[in-house]
């Protein structure tokens, strides 16, 4: 009885799965950086980036449906940019008044909102493809190779390892609660208790999980000490990146830089 759905990695043997994790990590970061640096409303470049992400997704053999379904996760965050539609000054497209306020939708606002939405959607897609085609331990190794502080990487690793333990524990707790949520023989009783009581029970469960996580971290630390942990995380030396990896990395970076240059040319 374990929870598997948390792990975004999907088994596969596509070219993307076989690519060095370091190369994937750098390219994904570079892609997201490029997308973030793009000016507003350079639609031709957006389309090119979209076709790039589409090709990567097809190459990854993950299935477009899978990637798009997961990328819907980004939608709620895009809502944060919604007020821009009304607040940016510019040619007004449509005006309405609401409770004495005059709201007007400006063209500049719509362009900015659509750009932000599209850009975050593209970035999320790349991150999804990377995590789905790379086992997490390899990503950790890649992070270490890129000189991300070792302690931070170690924390990511431990978090990943025990997230599943934590999720399993939560599942068992919820199951135990369900097992005792019954109905008495008298028919006239209202089962379920009050909302406040149920909230208190849920709060108690959360507090319990916190205490246990705390205890567990103590035990884990002691187990680490017992095996000689001295505050320094060591790891095996890494294989050098293969020629194919270098080639993909170089081409990818070149492509992203040229797209960025193209965008600048279009806005001047």
């Amino acid at each position: 009885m374990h929870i598997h759905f948390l792990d975004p990695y999907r088994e596969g043997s596509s070219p993307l799965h076989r690519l060095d994790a370091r190369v994937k990590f750098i390219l994904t970061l570079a892609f997201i950086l490029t997308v973030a640096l793009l000016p507003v409303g350079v639609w031709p470049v957006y389309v090119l980036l979209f076709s790039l992400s589409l090709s990567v997704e097809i190459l990854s053999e993950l299935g477009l449906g899978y990637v798009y379904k997961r990328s819907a996760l980004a939608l709620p965050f895009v809502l944060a940019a919604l007020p821009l539609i009304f607040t940016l000054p510019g040619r007004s497209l449509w005006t309405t008044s609401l409770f004495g306020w005059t709201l007007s939708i400006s063209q500049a606002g719509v362009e900015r909102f659509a750009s932000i939405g599209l850009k975050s959607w593209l970035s999320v897609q790349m991150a999804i493809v990377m995590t789905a085609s790379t086992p997490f331990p390899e990503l950790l190794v890649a992070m270490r190779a890129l000189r991300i502080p070792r302690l931070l990487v170690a924390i990511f690793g431990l978090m990943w390892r025990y997230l599943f333990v934590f999720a399993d524990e939560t599942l068992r707790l919820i199951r135990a609660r369900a097992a005792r949520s019954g109905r008495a023989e008298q028919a006239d009783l209202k089962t379920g208790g009050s909302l406040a009581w149920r909230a208190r029970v849920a709060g108690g469960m959360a507090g319990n999980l916190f205490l246990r996580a705390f205890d567990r971290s103590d035990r884990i630390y002691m187990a680490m000490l017992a095996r000689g942990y001295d505050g320094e995380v060591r790891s095996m030396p890494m294989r050098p990146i293969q020629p194919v990896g270098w080639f993909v990395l170089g081409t990818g970076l070149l492509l992203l830089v040229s797209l960025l240059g193209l965008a600048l040319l279009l806005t001047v």
Partner: protein
Amino acid sequence: MHHSIEIHNLSYTYPDGQRALQGVSLNIRPDEKVALVGPNGAGKSTLILHLNGILDGQGQVEVCGLDVVKENFARVRALVGLVFQSPEDQLFSPTVFDDVAYGPLYQGLPVEQVQARVQEALAAVHMQGYERRVSHHLSMGEKKRIAIATVLSMEPEVLVLDEPTAGLDPRSRRSLIELLRELPMTMLVSTHDMLMVQELFPRMVIMDEGRVIADGPTQQLMDDEELLWAHGLEKPR
């Protein structure tokens, strides 16, 4: 007269494709005390989780004359007291009182009745005076007793326990066995503790690979050492 537990041809496959139960049938009469034994991964816990609809497989499960189907889950959960293997899972409230009172409060019983139920349940497991204690800080043996009290407070007809003696020191184990002996209801206990089985349960059911391998008088099955050995068990000496 209905059986306490009637299982007919029950099968269950986990979402990852692992076939945990394959055509299990089992009847338990009222007031009978039955031990459920078998190696790890035999399907004992999976079977137990079907008795109050936490898991819902193919086949028929009836408890106290009620079909264990969605409409009856709430009623069945009050009738079957399920004690999980780890009291850490069972005890999810800040204090012992809150935990023991959870079932009655959920059922919507009046406050005085809840109080009375908690007192009775704690008395039954010999843990009076622990109401205000924090579950987190109790010893393993105490946690096990409180876990049992949390289902006794629902006044169930059937008590189902998953490995009640696992992880207990000899004294706590002994007092838990005495406690199980005192409790009058129908009992199905999944365990690896063969000494306890011999001592407490007249009837024994052996499970392996999701099937019931043998079902009969404990003494008779215990004498068949070949059978025990074949299914990861050992006769106590």
